């Protein structure tokens, strides 16, 4: 219903690039081969056989030449990733992150676009605030940003936001992320109202009567540590309930950050009914478990909490089978002093934009658990779920690309972060796979320092 662009980013000069002999991998286009790729005026102009294309002049009076980056047949060129779930903390919590630093982190992680959550201060729940945020994004964002305003005013779960007006102002959909819509009756009204305004309803699933007071997964580790646990049924019962509501109203819902086997089962059952549901999973839930919380490192504290190994394996299987549609980082920055407190006092959340691909490549692709092509598919699939065009490597498409050195090994956080916050659950780990260059909406959004040495001339 909205005529205006849903994604909005800052002004950047369109890229002029010749990517010579890069290994192009675009699973949807069926490309997995070495090519030369020319980016002209921010669009993919042509793909050629490796070594066939030459630099073209461009610019005023054709005085400049396209930048040449040599992939040596080794560097991978992928469609830029899409992250449907990040916290950019603006407005109100700019000490944690802002539009510029958050989208810089996204670009550094190979993401060409992100969707920002509304649990800011004030909550993104009105059209004027959405307008001002989009204006700010048009000035500051390194990669295009879409916004999901709140389902209920102030995330209070009591009164719907003006969803139709918000959609006209560019809302991609709605979410009360950070909190569940606890009342089934309230959620049902939002699902019904979706028939008027459209837009995906994204759901953070948590029954607060089951999770209250909890700081980590309920199980052997929480019992040993004497920390109140959050049972997996706090999530899975709400997934099942809301899937049934969506089925009844024939509404479109998206389940955020699945964390346990029972939730994967609930989504699979909903899909088997033909209900219009989709789901995302975060790298930390695919790679870490409650065992990683034993040391009470507050970077391991997030909602939903890291669960058991069996849950982790079920999430991987769900991602492979397509029950889970896409990967989302749930990038949740917090300032150092906010996280440098006892575990039970610490806020929930881990940053993740800068490590998402490398962590999953290291933890799932290298051991042969997930194909690289499947991972790329799942890291770009979020766009279509929000009715946005999927980045594609084909002539004529806008340049949404990420160039990756799959052999590069680095220690997460060793040279700091692009994000304003450093609360990354993968910090200190050796990761393999480094983003060298990201093009978002036709412009260069990130360029790794190492690129000068390995590729650029």
């Amino acid at each position, binding site marked *: 219903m909205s005529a205006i662009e849903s994604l909005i980013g800052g002004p950047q000069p369109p890229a002029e690039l010749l990517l010579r002999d890069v290994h192009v991998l675009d699973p949807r286009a069926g490309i997995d081969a070495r090519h030369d790729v020319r980016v002209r005026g921010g669009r993919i102009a042509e793909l050629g056989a490796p070594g066939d294309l030459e630099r073209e002049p461009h610019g005023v009076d054709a005085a400049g030449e396209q930048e040449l980056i040599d992939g040596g047949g080794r560097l991978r060129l992928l469609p830029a990733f899409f992250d449907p779930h990040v916290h950019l903390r603006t407005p109100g919590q700019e000490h944690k992150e802002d539009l510029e630093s958050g989208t810089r982190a996204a670009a550094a992680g190979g993401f060409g676009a992100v969707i920002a959550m509304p649990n800011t201060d004030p909550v993104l729940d009105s059209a004027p605030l959405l307008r001002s945020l989009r204006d700010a994004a048009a000035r500051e964002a390194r990669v295009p940003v879409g916004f999901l305003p709140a389902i209920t005013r102030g995330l209070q779960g009591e009164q719907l936001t003006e969803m139709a007006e918000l959609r006209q102002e560019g809302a991609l959909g709605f979410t009360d992320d950070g909190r569940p819509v606890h009342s089934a009756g309230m959620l049902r009204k939002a699902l019904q109202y979706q028939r008027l305004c459209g837009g995906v309803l994204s759901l953070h699933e948590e029954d607060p009567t089951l999770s*209250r*007071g909890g700081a980590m997964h*309920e*199980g*052997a*580790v*929480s*019992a*040993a*540590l*004497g*920390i*109140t*646990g959050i*049972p997996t049924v706090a999530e899975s019962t709400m997934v099942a309930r809301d899937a049934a509501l969506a089925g009844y109203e024939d509404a479109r819902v998206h389940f955020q950050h699945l964390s346990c086997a029972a939730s994967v089962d609930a989504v699979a059952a909903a899909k088997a009914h033909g209900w219009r549901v989709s789901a995302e999973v975060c790298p930390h839930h695919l*790679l*870490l478990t409650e065992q990683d919380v034993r*040391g*009470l*490192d507050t*970077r391991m504290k997030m909602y939903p909490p890291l669960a058991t190994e069996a849950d*982790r394996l079920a999430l991987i299987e769900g991602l492979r089978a397509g029950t889970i549609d896409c990967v989302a980082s749930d990038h949740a920055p917090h300032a150092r*002093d906010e996280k*440098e*407190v*006892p*575990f*039970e*006092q610490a806020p929930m959340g881990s940053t993740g934009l800068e490590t998402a691909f490398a*962590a999953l490549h*290291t*933890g799932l692709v290298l051991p042969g658990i997930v194909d690289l092509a499947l991972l790329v598919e799942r890291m770009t699939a979020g766009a279509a779920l929000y009715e946005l065009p999927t980045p594609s490597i084909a002539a004529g498409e806008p340049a949404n690309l990420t160039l990756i050195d799959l052999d590069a090994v680095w220690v997460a956080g060793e040279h700091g972060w692009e994000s304003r916050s450093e609360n990354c*659950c*993968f*910090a*200190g*780990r*050796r*990761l393999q796979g480094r983003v060298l260059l990201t093009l978002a909406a036709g412009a260069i959004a990130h360029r790794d320092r190492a690129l000068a040495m390995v590729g650029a001339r």
Partner: protein
Amino acid sequence: MNHLISIEDLQRADIERIVSQAERFAEVSDREIKTLPTLRGRMVLNLFYEASTRTRGSFELAAKRLSADVVNFVASGSSVEKGESLKDTVLTLSAHKPDAIVLRTPWAGAAELVSRWCSAAIVNAGDGKHEHPTQALLDVYTLRRHLGAIDGASIWIVGDVAHSRVARSNVLAFQRMGARVTLAGPPTLIPRGIEELGCEVRYTLDELDTANVVYALRMQHERMSETWVPSMREYAAWYQINGRRLAPHQTLMHPGPVNRGVELSGEVVDSPQAVITAQVQAGVVVRMAVLYELLAGAREPRPAPAAEPVAGGRLA
């Protein structure tokens, strides 16, 4: 040992060494002059974020018996109420260069955290519902004196396990000393997964007569924000240790303070089977032994705390 954070960090030999040292200090306690010069010139800082008269008093007495200087810092009425973070409080107090900090907080893992922020020896006097290691050590000491040896004994810990740091530390300590531990209590107060500590779980006291030692936990009204049992009356009907349930051969323990008529009936508190007063006496000598272990003797200079904890390991 640099710190006493958790019983998990201790081997049986460590526990035995501390308990034996406590036994030597116990002889001094019976003398007319009870003070030893061992820790003269050392400073022990008691930093308490929770109300506690017994534990704090016990630590204070233990430090004074060893001639250490004691400073008490209680969270209420201090900068903590003005919003100062734990880290800032610890860094500020560290400026006084305490040799040991005795720390009680309502947060699991706080003692471990503080040990990274300053160079003092940290004694965990209770971190949330996690651990209370000196309580476990004094209980081992008491039982050893009472039973001779703990090896092979069957110990039942009864009551509100979920909110009890004493239960966690004691399960670990009693097991280290060779006992078999059973946890019993209402299903709402036994955390899911606790049996992975290696103990048995029971929801009734039907088999209580198999125990050599019955360790009743306090029903902690002050920690209960929700309804965990239908009523104290019903709790008492099913789980109270009373003259009918306690067999003559059994030893009765309790960490105090006792709710008479709730977890224990008055008659068993006053019975000769109860060693509750002995536990209190043991508190001082065991805490003397802990301070001695951490502070006395020719020790290497304390290493500076690590600048930044590094998450280790590779991915799965």
